[in-house]
Every structure is written in C-alpha cells, then in structure tokens.
C-alpha cells in the first residue's frame, strides 16, 4: 500500500510540463536512434547525457530512461519494414515482422510491435516497483555456472529454429559459434583466428554481421529477382491496426514473454537480445501452430517485442536496488545519476524515496509515450514500404554502411557487413537458415566464457553445473528444448510410416 501511495506521489512529480516534455522528447529521440541501424540505446543515452547537466535530477534521468525504452522499441520499425534490425534486440522481430510487411500488413505488424513493447515495458515497471529488492538479491545468486546454463538454454533454441532443415541449421549455428571464438580469449589472452589483424582482436562485431545477413542479403535477393517498382510489400497495404481479437489471441504470448524478458533483463550481462530469442522460442514451443512462425504471424512479433522491452525494466532492478549496471545502457545511466550527485543502490531508496518513485512513474510514462508515438506513427512508417525499390535499395545500402561504421568508427566493420551480406545471400539461396548463426554468435562467446570461469572457480569440477538448483533447472529445460524437435521429427516419421 505504501508503495502505491509513493508511486502516486511519483506521478505527481513527473507529470509537470518539463517532465512530460522530457519524456516525449526522450522517447521520440530514442525511437529514431533505435530505428537507425548501428545506433543503439546506449549511444542514444550517451549522446543526450550532456544535455542533462543543467536539468533537475528527475526529468534528466527520466529523459534518458525514455530514450532507452524508445530505442528498444524503435529497433523493430526498420526490422519490420526493411529487414534491417535497428538494434540487436530486434533481430528476432525480423523473422515474422518482415514477412507480415511483405504480405501487405506493415501497419498491423508495427502496431503489434508497439502494443507488445508497451505491455512488456509496463509489466516490467510494475515488477520494478513492487519486487525490485528480492529480485535483485536473486540476480546476485547467478554465478558463472548459472549463466552458462542460461546460455545453454538460449542456445538450445537452435534446434527448433532449424526444424525445417536440421543439418543445415546446425551447420549455420556451428559457423556462428566458430565466429564467436574470433578475437582475444578472455581467460588466457591468446588471439584466436585473428591472423594479425588488430581489428579482429575484439572479435567479430555483432552489428555488421546482423546488418549484412539480414539487410544486405535482402538487397542482393531483390536485385536478383528484379523487383523494382514496389518497396518492401508484394501486395497493397491492407490493415493498419490490430484488433482486440488480435490482441486477445496473443495475450498468453505477451504475458509469458513479459515474464521472461523481465527475469532475463534483471540478470547482469544477459540483456534484451537474449530475452527476445528465448521468448520467441518459448512462444513457438507453446504454440499449437508452430509452423506459422517465420511466415508472418503476430505471435512471432509479440513475443520478442514484449520480452525486449520487459528487459528494460528488468535491467533497472539491479541498477536501482544494488547500484549494479546489468547492461551497457544502464552503465551509461549510472553516469547520469552521478552527474546529478546521486548514487544508485539501497541507500537511494532510503535517502531519496521520492526521486526513486518519480523514476518508476517516469519509466511508466516513457512506455506510454513510445506507445502513443508508435501507434500514431505506424501509418506514416508503413509508407516506407511504398517507396520504389530503385530509391529504397541504394538507401538501405547507405544506411547499412553508416550503421556498421558508426558502432566503432571502423571501416573493417563495413567490410565485414558486405562480406556477411554476400554470405547471407548464399545462405538464403542454399536454404541455410541464418537465425541459428545469429543466435550462436550472440550466445556462444558468453557460454564459453562462463563455462570456463565456472570451471576455474570449481577447480575443474564439472559437477558444479549440476549441483546448483538454478543451473540444473536451466540445463534440464535446455536439454528438453534441444531434443524436443528431434522427438517431434521421429514421431512425425513414425506416423507417416503407419499411415
């Protein structure tokens, strides 16, 4: 009850002219940053950080939080319309979002993304308000063994992502895992597969790979098919809004994905991308019609979008409760707190409760703001698909180039982007799924480092991974997810034989 009263007070504080202006400005800027390939939430927050020097603490930090929430949602816009995920967290949205846009439903896909992101975000804020201290303590129970188990669970999705062609999907995943080993080994300091290129010491950057595999390969395919007059869509734009029936049909998916997103977001280092992939797979696993996934179904957008936005609230839990930044963006946000003379952590709740609840209310409003802007803008954004390809294709290539370059100001990343664009073209032509490669590239290095750290801590004792309850549970679920598609395939074959 006390929390509710404090939250009401927080709303009173933030709903001033300056507060609302900062929320909407932050959200609009965040959506733009998120939609531009190569620019992510942490860059957006860092870009506007200097503007907050002269502002009061509450509107200043809330503006930066609005950028964070807006950017995670914004990534879905270009993912749906151009097959170019604006942020890594939107990589999963491409699978069904772009297909829906191709089928003449870009507005419906965008509305679904905005609604799912909004619900996921609001859910995580509610969790943040009422459960942050115990959840933050839970996050601290995650050691290398638990993180490895979580990564294994995430990687186990590969088999269901490859269900259409298991061997090719697994080859794609192994190529991703091998690419993940490029760079300096963080345990021994040995440079692996770098061939004396200093640019490769940090490993293969994820953004150029993502842009190349999804966007550039699509440009090549479009040129090959010689589709010049229409943009992204094959048919006329049909519907621009989702109905209540649509929303009801994905309510279970959104609820489940919001819970997954919040929990994964709380874990330091896990992040919105992992949350989106896990939620997508869980949605597919629970679905009665898993064959519709990847062909443009609403659940395929609702799951990753609600999860990645739920991760934003989740990532604020360790930041505000313990003062631990769990992601790149929250690390930049800590800087904003310090500029304002504040130190996030347990003491902040005791010393500045009014500010803390103002931040909670501000984050709630940030989700409302990007939802309003997203829904209003969906009609406008959908017009992108009407741009003729002769204009759209060169524009995508320029966007892709700047996006790849912007992340670390490196032309090597531009080269990698074109290289992976060509690879993606051949992969698609030869029926190799690219999703397992992307997932393996994200989770592979994390899995490796945590496995090795876990072994160092346990002195080489492998039982450390199965003697801890969280780790054992995650490994068991991961194993189940890994073998399920094989069991399903076996059953289908048996059924076909008897028929």
């Amino acid at each position: 009850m006390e929390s509710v009263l404090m939250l009401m007070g927080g709303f009173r504080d933030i709903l001033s002219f300056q507060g609302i202006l900062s929320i909407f400005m932050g959200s609009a800027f965040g959506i733009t940053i998120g939609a531009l390939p190569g620019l992510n939430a942490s860059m957006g927050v860092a870009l506007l950080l200097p503007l907050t020097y002269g502002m009061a603490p509450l509107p200043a930090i809330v503006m930066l939080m609005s950028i964070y929430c807006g950017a995670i949602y914004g990534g879905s816009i270009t993912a749906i319309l151009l097959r170019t995920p604006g942020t890594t967290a939107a990589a999963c949205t491409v699978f069904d979002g772009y297909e829906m846009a191709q089928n003449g439903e870009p507005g419906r896909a965008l509305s679904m993304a905005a609604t799912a992101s909004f619900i996921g975000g609001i859910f995580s804020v509610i969790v943040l308000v009422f459960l942050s201290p115990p959840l933050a303590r839970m996050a601290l129970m995650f050691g290398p063994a638990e993180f490895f188990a979580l990564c294994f669970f995430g990687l186990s999705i590969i088999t269901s992502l490859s269900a259409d062609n298991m061997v090719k999907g697994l080859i794609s995943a192994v190529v991703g895992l091998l690419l993940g080993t490029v760079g300096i080994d963080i345990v021994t300091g040995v440079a692996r597969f770098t061939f004396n290129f200093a640019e490769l010491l940090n490993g293969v950057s994820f953004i150029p790979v993502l842009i190349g595999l999804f966007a550039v390969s699509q440009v090549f395919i479009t040129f090959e098919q010689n589709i010049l007059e229409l943009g992204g869509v094959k048919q006329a734009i049909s519907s621009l809004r989702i109905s209540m029936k649509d929303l009801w049909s994905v309510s279970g998916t959104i609820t489940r994905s919001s819970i997954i997103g919040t929990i994964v977001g709380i874990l330091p280092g896990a992040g919105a991308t992992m949350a989106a992939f896990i939620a997508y797979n869980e949605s597919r696993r629970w679905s009665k019609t898993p064959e519709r996934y990847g062909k443009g179904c609403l659940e395929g957008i609702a799951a990753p979008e609600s999860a990645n936005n739920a991760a934003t609230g989740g990532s604020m839990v360790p930041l505000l409760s313990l003062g631990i930044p769990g992601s790149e963006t929250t690390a930049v946000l800590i800087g904003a707190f310090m500029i304002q003379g504040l130190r996030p952590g347990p003491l902040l709740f005791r010393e500045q409760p009014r500010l803390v609840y103002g931040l909670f209310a501000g984050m709630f409003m940030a989700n409302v703001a990007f939802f309003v802007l997203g829904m209003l803008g969906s009609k406008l954004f959908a017009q992108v698909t009407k741009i003729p390809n002769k204009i759209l294709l060169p524009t995508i290539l320029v966007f892709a180039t700047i996006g790849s370059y912007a992340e670390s100001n490196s032309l090597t990343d531009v080269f990698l982007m074109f290289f992976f664009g060509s690879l993606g073209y051949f992969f698609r032509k030869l029926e190799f799924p690219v999703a397992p490669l992307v997932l393996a590239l994200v989770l592979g290095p994390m899995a490796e480092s945590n496995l090795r750290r876990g072994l160092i801590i346990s002195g080489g004792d492998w039982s450390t991974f199965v003697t801890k309850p969280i780790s054992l549970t995650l490994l068991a679920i991961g194993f189940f997810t890994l073998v399920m598609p094989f069991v399903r395939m076996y059953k289908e074959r048996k059924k076909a034989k008897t028929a």
Partner: protein
Amino acid sequence: MKDFKYANSILGVLFFVLGAWCYWESGEYVPWVEMEGQMGAHIFPRLFAGALMFLSALMIFMDVKQFTKATIISFDGIGVVFVIAVLCFAFWYFIPIVGFLSTATLFVCIITAIATRKLRIFDYISVVVVLSFIYFIFANLLKVPLPRGFFI
C-alpha cells in the same frame, strides 16, 4: 547454368574443409602449460570445428543417399548480384581515399542505374537528396564522424 542440384554435396565438402582448417588452426592455441581446472583457448574452436566436420560429412552422406530433398538452385540473375557485390566492396575501398559523401553519391547513382537500367534524372536526384538527408542526420545531428578522404 540452370537448376544445379549437387549443391548440398559440394557445400558439404567446402564446410568439411573449413572445419578441418579451423581444427588445424586451433592447434596453435594449445597452452604451453596446463593449469588445473582451466580449459585451454583451443578447446572450444576444436569442438566446434569437429562438429562442423561431422555435420558436413552427414550432409554429404544424406545428399548422396538421397535421404533429404536435394537443394536445387538456379543461377539466373547471379550476374547482377555479383556486380552489386563488387560495387559494394569497391565502395568500401574508396571511402577512405575519396571521402564518404563523394563515394556514396557515385555509388548510389550507379546502383540506381543498375536497378532502373534507364537514365532518368529524377531517380538520380531523388537518391542523392535522400543520401544528403541521411548524411546530414548522421554527420551533423548525431555527430557520427564519417570518414573523409580527398573530398568529404
């Protein structure tokens, strides 16, 4: 070349060679001194390279025995893709020499010419206006330091 149907076997061989090469290369990362409880930097690359060799061998076997449907690919239209890919790499090469904006202007005009196969001035003006707008957003508003060469 139309409807090439031995793609899976050839790809299997290529992936097997890649796996074998990665396996051999990862031998370079074996630590000189074994430490208790510590996995060397070579273990994971070797594991993945081994998995790649196994899977590619499996793919070849399944293709030869016709356990899976052959992937039939058509190379119609690959010429234009090859030209676009070469242009992309040329664009990347000339950016630091000539400068981003100048190279990109030429690049988008050539891409538009290939796309339309016509010389319609309006198309070129449109793409150059869009390019300038994108450049303005990134370079001037977002302060992304785009590469400069002889020109901007």
